[in-house]
């Protein structure tokens, strides 16, 4: 569902690499060529991408939990099917992204282990709870909406497998976003209780969604290399502003109020939002969001309780291979 600028600073090891290869590599990037798995790449490029793609994959998988929380309680059979299909799509994105990360030489197992050990991050947004059905509409509308804003430029990312994955992922996210907005439209055309439910969900999700774009540009420590490598094409604040400008009219159409009394439209038509509470963002990233512990516990439980199944599958595959070898030898 979403990748976030969470990377820690990469080591600048240009001095350690072959300078000629590095120059050639940068020339290819500047010429908008795609870098493919077997191409030479600087170690820091590989490391940055592995981290970003795997964080993105972890986010898809952890992101199944808040929405999955409503699959068994969806209010109609149509909504139940749509939500289940959506969460299944997120799982597919996770698988797809782990596969993209594997092209850089990291195995899915080691990446998942790092996440379960708390060493790898996932998007902060999934550490907030889904309390009502309106949260499902709001996640589709805003969280997927923010994800699209972030991921459309990634379709032109310099690394081929990631860029291609994003094209497919964005198509599905766009469908999810419309589906979420349609839930919101239905709620806002419904009873007073439903409208209040929709407003309450917007109130709770608005600021965490703005935080999805990562720290403000002034405080962002590592965009330079990513920009030079054309992994990142817009700054956090640029994407955040684009998102806000696109979303305000959607909220107005719904008759909902953005929970930011200080928001004003400037002369150029941009909606200027108030200061974001970055303390909350840091706390959530540090593990102190409302659901961090629950999310990690759920993923670890699934992993631990599934261990015997994975072992059985591996043992059976080994037995079968052995039998086939024995048969071939006869």
């Amino acid at each position: 569902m979403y990748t976030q600028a969470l990377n820690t600073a990469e080591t600048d090891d240009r001095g350690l690499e072959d300078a000629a290869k590095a120059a050639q590599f940068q020339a290819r990037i500047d010429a908008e060529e795609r870098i493919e798995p077997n191409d030479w790449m600087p170690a820091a490029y590989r490391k940055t991408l592995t981290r970003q793609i795997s964080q993105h994959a972890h986010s898809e998988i952890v992101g199944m939990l808040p929405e999955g929380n409503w699959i068994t309680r969806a209010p109609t059979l149509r909504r139940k099917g749509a939500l289940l299909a959506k969460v299944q799509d997120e799982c597919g994105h996770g698988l797809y992204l782990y596969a993209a990360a594997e092209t850089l030489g990291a195995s899915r197992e080691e990446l998942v282990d790092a996440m379960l050990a708390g060493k790898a991050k996932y998007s902060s947004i999934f550490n907030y709870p889904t309390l009502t059905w309106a949260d499902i509409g709001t996640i589709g509308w805003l969280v997927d909406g923010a994800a699209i804003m972030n991921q459309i430029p990634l379709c032109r990312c310099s690394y081929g497998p990631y860029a291609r994955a994003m094209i497919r992922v964005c198509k599905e996210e766009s469908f999810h976003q419309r589906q979420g907005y349609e839930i919101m439209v239905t709620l806002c055309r419904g009873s007073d209780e439903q409208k209040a439910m929709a407003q309450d969900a917007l109130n709770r999700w608005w600021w965490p969604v703005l935080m999805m774009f990562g720290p403000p540009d002034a405080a962002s420590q590592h965009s330079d290399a990513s920009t030079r490598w054309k992994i990142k094409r817009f700054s956090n604040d640029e994407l955040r502003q684009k998102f806000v400008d696109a979303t305000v009219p959607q909220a107005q159409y719904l008759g909902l109020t953005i929970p930011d009394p200080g928001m004003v439209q400037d002369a150029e038509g941009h909606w200027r939002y108030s200061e974001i509470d970055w303390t909350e963002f840091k706390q959530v990233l540090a593990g102190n969001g409302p659901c961090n512990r629950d999310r990690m516990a759920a993923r670890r439980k699934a992993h631990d309780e599934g261990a015997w199944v994975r072992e059985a599958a591996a043992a059976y595959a080994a037995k079968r291979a052995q039998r086939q070898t024995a048969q071939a030898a006869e």
Partner: protein
Amino acid sequence: MSCANIQVSETPLMLYALRRADDALILGHRLSEWCGHAPILEEDMALSNIALDLIGQARELYGYAAKSEGRDNDEDKLAYLRDVRQYRNLLLVEQPNGDFAHTMVRQFFYSAFADLYWREMMSSRDATLAAIAAKSEKESAYHLRHASEWIIRLGDGTDESHRRVQAAIDDLWAFTGEMFAVDDGERALIHAGVAIDPGTLRGRWLTTLSDVIDEATLSLPQNDWMQQGGRAGRHSEHLGHLLSELQSMQRTFPGLTW
């Protein structure tokens, strides 16, 4: 919609569709509980896929049940506003997920039946049921293949997986007899060529089971005592909890559009 239970006129054809709809919904719901919690991501995908197929089948069957009934009930009223005593599903499908072995054995027993059942139902004289059967048969064939492969992997995998899957077979076996039972209302439909006699499928169902169970180095229980009651609304204690979750929105916020 009010939040009270609806009244249902269970004419033989309506009840026939309703029972199969309830099977599909309850099993689909159970499988959907795995989404986000499965042993590997591929199974999150697969179990969700199967759940989606079953929920799709349920919607078509509820739609037909409502049409046959000819009152103002619809798929959502039938799913969300009947209490446990009005549900007509097999006891097998409401059994809790348990461990992955229990989920797979439940699916295996059911899909081995559903695959045969829907294939036969394609020649129903009722055009709607025949059309639903044609779609469901394709899906069931895939569900059966998926479950069979897992039964073999688990049975012939490790000592632990063997023990777990055998325990699941032993636990769930008593719920399989109900699939082949027929009451008077259904007998009339069978006679009219609308329904098929599930009793005639039992031999082939056992063959399907035995082939897989043998390859998996497992065994079927000798105990032939079978639990009954789901078709008449006498359920296990598990169904009430499932329904309280499934129906919570419609019961809490009656009569709204979602």
